[in-house]
């Protein structure tokens, strides 16, 4: 891998990490309203999968979608303003952390739901011969939703060009996957006639490689594909989660395999510091801009409810 590519990937991953940590601070200081689901520890799956996609492809994501959003758009200002509830946010403060939109990028707060919506999007892309594929990020928790089974069944029956990028972070909120998932993940895909692979690596470049293979399969064959990505969130499920359901020892073990630290170790210190400073400055500028931005004019609150 060329050094410049490594630096670029590191910058994307660091941006997500620093963004999420800053969001947590803003919550602690009472500057944010509501809740948020950070993806600290899962930066490599977000950046790895998105790197394998074309800009005209379509992405759907979940309640834990900041990393996917930043990897897709790089729009720190729009995301920060959205989470801070400002009119300048990507959804004008209506959606907040878990309901985000950008061009060809959609998230919603219902577990599993967007995997099914994404399946329909993939069928539309196929029908219109756009050549685009859809990538739906889902989590291990979504496998317990019947809707996902229904949609994957249709995806296989109707040859939908969709990549289900399943981030298995071992926990559906506080409940370990061993308590929520009978059988296995890959056998589910097998039963539906859907190709699949599992990546158990903290190396973002291995994730990119597996994602590129999966994306190529989906695009070439116009078929669905399930890519299981083993990962771990170092933070709680949401801002109000003390992680009482798992040991610090378990977390420490995973911390030793922090994908961001692993990549950082392979970079020149000066390069790294320059990237980190640039990311932090972007985030601070976004916060400053959002603080100054107004909330949406109340006179506009009904706009977009009915399209004409």
């Amino acid at each position: 891998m060329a050094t410049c590519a490594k630096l670029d990937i590191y910058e994307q991953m660091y941006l997500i990490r620093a963004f999420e940590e800053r969001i947590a601070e803003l919550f602690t200081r009472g500057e944010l309203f509501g809740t948020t689901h950070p993806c600290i520890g899962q930066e490599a799956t977000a950046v790895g999968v998105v790197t394998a996609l074309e800009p005209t492809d379509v992405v759907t994501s979940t309640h834990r979608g900041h990393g996917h959003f930043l990897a897709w758009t790089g729009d720190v200002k729009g995301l920060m303003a959205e989470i801070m509830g400002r009119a300048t946010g990507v959804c004008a403060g209506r959606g907040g952390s878990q309901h985000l939109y950008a061009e060809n990028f959609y998230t919603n707060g219902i577990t599993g739901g967007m995997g099914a919506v994404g399946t329909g999007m993939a069928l539309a892309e196929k029908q219109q011969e756009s050549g685009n594929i859809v990538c739906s990020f889902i989590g291990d928790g979504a496998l317990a939703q019947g809707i996902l089974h229904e949609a994957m069944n249709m995806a296989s029956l109707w040859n939908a060009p969709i990549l289900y990028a399943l981030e298995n972070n071992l926990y559906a909120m506080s409940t370990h996957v061993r308590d929520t998932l009978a059988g296995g993940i890959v056998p589910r895909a097998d039963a539906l006639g859907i190709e699949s692979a599992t990546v158990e690596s903290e190396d973002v470049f291995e994730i990119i490689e597996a994602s590129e293979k999966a994306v190529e399969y989906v695009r070439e064959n116009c078929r669905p594909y399930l890519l299981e990505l083993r990962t771990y969130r170092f933070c709680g499920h949401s801002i109000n989660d003390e992680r009482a359901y798992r040991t610090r020892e378990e977390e420490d073990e995973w911390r030793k395999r922090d994908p961001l630290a692993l990549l950082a170790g392979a970079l020149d210190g000066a390069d790294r510091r320059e990237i980190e400073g640039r990311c932090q400055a972007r985030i601070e500028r976004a916060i400053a801009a959002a603080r100054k931005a107004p909330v949406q004019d109340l006179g506009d609150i009904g706009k977009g409810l009915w399209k004409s």
Partner: protein
Amino acid sequence: MEKLTVGRAIAAGLRKKLADDPTVYLLGEDICDPYGGAFRITRGLSSEFPGRLINVPISEAGTVAVTTGMALRGLRPVVEMMFGDFIALAADQLINHAAKFSWMYNGAVSVPLVVRAPMGGRRGYGPTHSQSLERMLLSTPGLRIVAPTPRHDAAALIGAAIDDPNPVVFIEGKLLYAAEQATVSEHYDIAHTHPPYPAAVLNNAAGEQPNVTVVTYGPMLPIVEEAMTATFNEDEVACEILAPSEIAPLDTALIGESVARTGRLIVAEEGPRSWGWAAEVVARVVERWGDRLVARPVRVTGRDLPLPTARPLEDHVLPGVETVRGAVEKVMLQ
């Protein structure tokens, strides 16, 4: 010539949209030939338009989710729920997905999705195949609920729903499939308000002041008409019947304007009494035009019971012609 029923009119509307708009797709359980749908509405269409109708697995939630995705990315899908009752299986997809996207994304996207739902009883299908579940969706901002009657042009209505950039749940009274669609009547002057979702206005006062305003929708209209015709002939009570096709969001101006003239209001629906459409209409009229009422409004509804299968039991639970006549008596005696 075969008579034009509401069912045939809907089929004609679907055929026209399939012919005119290549982005229109029909998805549903058993909708392709030779079956043509549980109520045979789509019969012939899959042969006429190869590839444009898709038989789906028995996955109502999945079907609405997938079509929502199709609608977000440039197609105009139409879902047929085999029975409207099954819409409960797709509640999350309608309420938390289809109805939310446009507003939630600050107007950046559209969801031109239609879900056709055969609703209503009187065919002996029992507790899970006879309900009027549109009531569960009426209070979802961003979801349009449209219901044809035999006094509407159902082909135009389904066409308007397909052209609509918003998600539409299209309520088809099962009993209306075989009912003749006619916009003229020997008993009533019939007018229509603004398209694309007009209210049908039926008046038998022959230029005089009607005595009572009756508001209803969908499969209750023929029952209301029959009751009000008998009432006119036997008791000389003239009425203005208002049947909006767009039942949510509801424009109450027409209703208020009529009530301001008649002073009396009856609202009829087939669904159970509590928390229903009729209750909302009464509340709105009382709030805004209460001082024009000369009698307390009366609701005609089903009972707060599940729908039984046996005919006499079902008849007991659902409102019929006599229920409407009883309501007229009640509102006129005050």
